[in-house]
């Protein structure tokens, strides 16, 4: 293939066009992977971004409900933590995309999703606190 489009079998393209894509720490190394894998990596990063959005939306909803119904202050603390973790989740999307794309270009094993355990742990703890509060208030 000589038109600059990467080959689906993972071989590097024979393009003579210089690659100016950013970040250079990713695109300056290795060979071009199958575009389907790159797009799947991009969609995974977007899924992390949407997860961060969901955490923030949950935090804002909690603040709103807490203010309207005069709930105790610790629910606002959980809301603040949810908003902060939502932002961190979005930042993790960037780092995770970069690590995975680099590993694919270098033909290395994909990195483990380290943030997943923090996300699951945080959601489980928040859910346990809210369920405990609901049971106590009955």
């Amino acid at each position: 293939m000589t038109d600059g489009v990467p080959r689906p079998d993972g071989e590097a393209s024979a393009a003579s066009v210089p690659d100016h894509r950013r970040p250079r720490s990713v695109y300056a190394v290795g060979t071009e992977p199958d575009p389907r894998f790159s797009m799947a990596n991009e969609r995974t990063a977007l899924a992390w971004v949407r997860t961060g959005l969901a955490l923030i939306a949950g935090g804002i909803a909690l603040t709103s409900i807490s203010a309207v119904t005069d709930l105790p202050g610790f629910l606002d603390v959980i809301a603040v933590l949810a908003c902060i973790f939502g932002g961190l989740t979005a930042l993790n999307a960037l780092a995770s995309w970069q690590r995975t794309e680099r590993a694919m270009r270098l033909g290395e094993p994909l990195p483990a999703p380290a943030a997943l355990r923090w996300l699951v742990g945080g959601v489980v703890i928040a859910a346990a606190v809210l369920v405990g509060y609901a049971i106590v208030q009955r």
Partner: protein
Amino acid sequence: MTENTRRPPPADTPGAVYGAAAERTALAWQRAGLGVVVGFFLVFRTAFGLGVIPVGVIAAILGVLVAALLVFVVPSARFLLGHRAGPWSALTAAAVAVVSLGMLGAVTSIIVLVRPGPG
């Protein structure tokens, strides 16, 4: 009887090889963009409803900026640059938007938490 003359594309064309991956990716971007814009609207509405006006104003301004960026700038740039445009700048913009949203939400919650109650 009319014969269906539509034939599948040759196996070596990009459409046959890559399938609908590009379409799914574009839809994922649209979902994320919609989520960001709706998130800013949620913060804007909540902050105004709770009397935290400055946060609401910032959320409204940022929300309009992000919406304009997502609708006009990012799709045009990626279309013009073709497959040579990596997703890094768009991903960074989305992450910065979500971090801003998180900070606005956290500030709103903190203000609601520390301000004196109506009683």
